[in-house]
């Protein structure tokens, strides 16, 4: 699964339309699920308060349907378009993964926004999302790749 396909195909208008539609469906899913409402997200993260378990079901629905896509692409051995398949290589659990995930969890719990919903919230002019996205883009940009061994 981790061997990349040998292909020099690049994006076409059709594949870009696919990415646009995927982003649109993804955003609609986040909105319908309530992920773009930080109060609802924090209601899920507050297990000691009045706990709203909804977001656990977002994960269940997302994983179940994404699993179908993963199995389909594995069965075909590639994409429908012939574009190369960029599957992550399975690497061991390492320190950057654990430290990074802890930092991400801190930020998620402080703001009630993870990356996707923050971007979608910009699309409906939700003002608190603007500083979150600004900080996020700086954080994604600032670390040199060689620090991360990439």
């Amino acid at each position, binding site marked *: 699964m981790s061997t990349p396909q040998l292909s020099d195909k690049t994006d076409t208008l059709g594949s870009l339309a*696919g990415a646009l539609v*995927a*982003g*649109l*469906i*993804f*955003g609609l*899913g986040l*909105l*319908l*699920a309530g992920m773009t409402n*930080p109060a609802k997200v924090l209601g899920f993260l507050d*297990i000691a*308060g*009045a706990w*709203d378990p*909804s*977001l656990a*079901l*977002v*994960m*269940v629905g*997302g*994983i179940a*349907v*994404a*699993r179908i*896509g*993963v199995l*389909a692409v594995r069965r075909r051995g*590639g994409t*429908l378009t012939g574009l190369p*398949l960029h599957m*992550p290589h399975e690497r061991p*659990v390492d320190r*950057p993964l654990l430290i*990074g*995930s*802890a*930092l*991400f*969890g*801190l*930020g998620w*719990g*402080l*703001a009630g*926004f*993870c*990356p*996707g919903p923050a971007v*979608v919230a*910009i699309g409906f002019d*939700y003002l608190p999302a603007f500083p*979150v996205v600004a*900080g*996020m883009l700086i*954080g*994604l940009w600032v*670390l040199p790749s060689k620090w991360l061994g990439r």
Partner: protein
Amino acid sequence: MNIAWSTFTPWSALAGGALIGLAASVLLLVNGRIAGISGILAGLVRAPGDRAWRLAFVSGLLAAPLVAGLVLPQHVFPTALPPGIQETLRLLVAGLLVGLGTRMANGCTSGHGVCGLARLSLRSLAAVAVFMGAAFGVVFVVRHVLPGAGA
């Protein structure tokens, strides 16, 4: 444990999750890419090439509220007052932590939480356990240990 039944929305949560999984499947089958939002954004702000599909995907995310306004009930759009200076700084720092953390960990709630677990990745399972634990922990501290300290 005290469940907030009045705010529990199981069907829209499952349906919204299914749409997210469908979008991840489309991006994988058409573009051969993992729908990890932090990775897609990192590629936009860092990588020299390979921007077109990322821009197309992010454009779809940004356009989703327009389409949602036509097909989803209005209550999917929360409203908020403009944040004050202190609140803006808190949100900026939170965003910075999200950006730094997801870049170090190579993924967020979508890349690890949905796509990674759908691939049965051990790394993603570890990432999800750690970021959920940290998020539960910080909300507990802010809401129950430091009363009056925000959020």
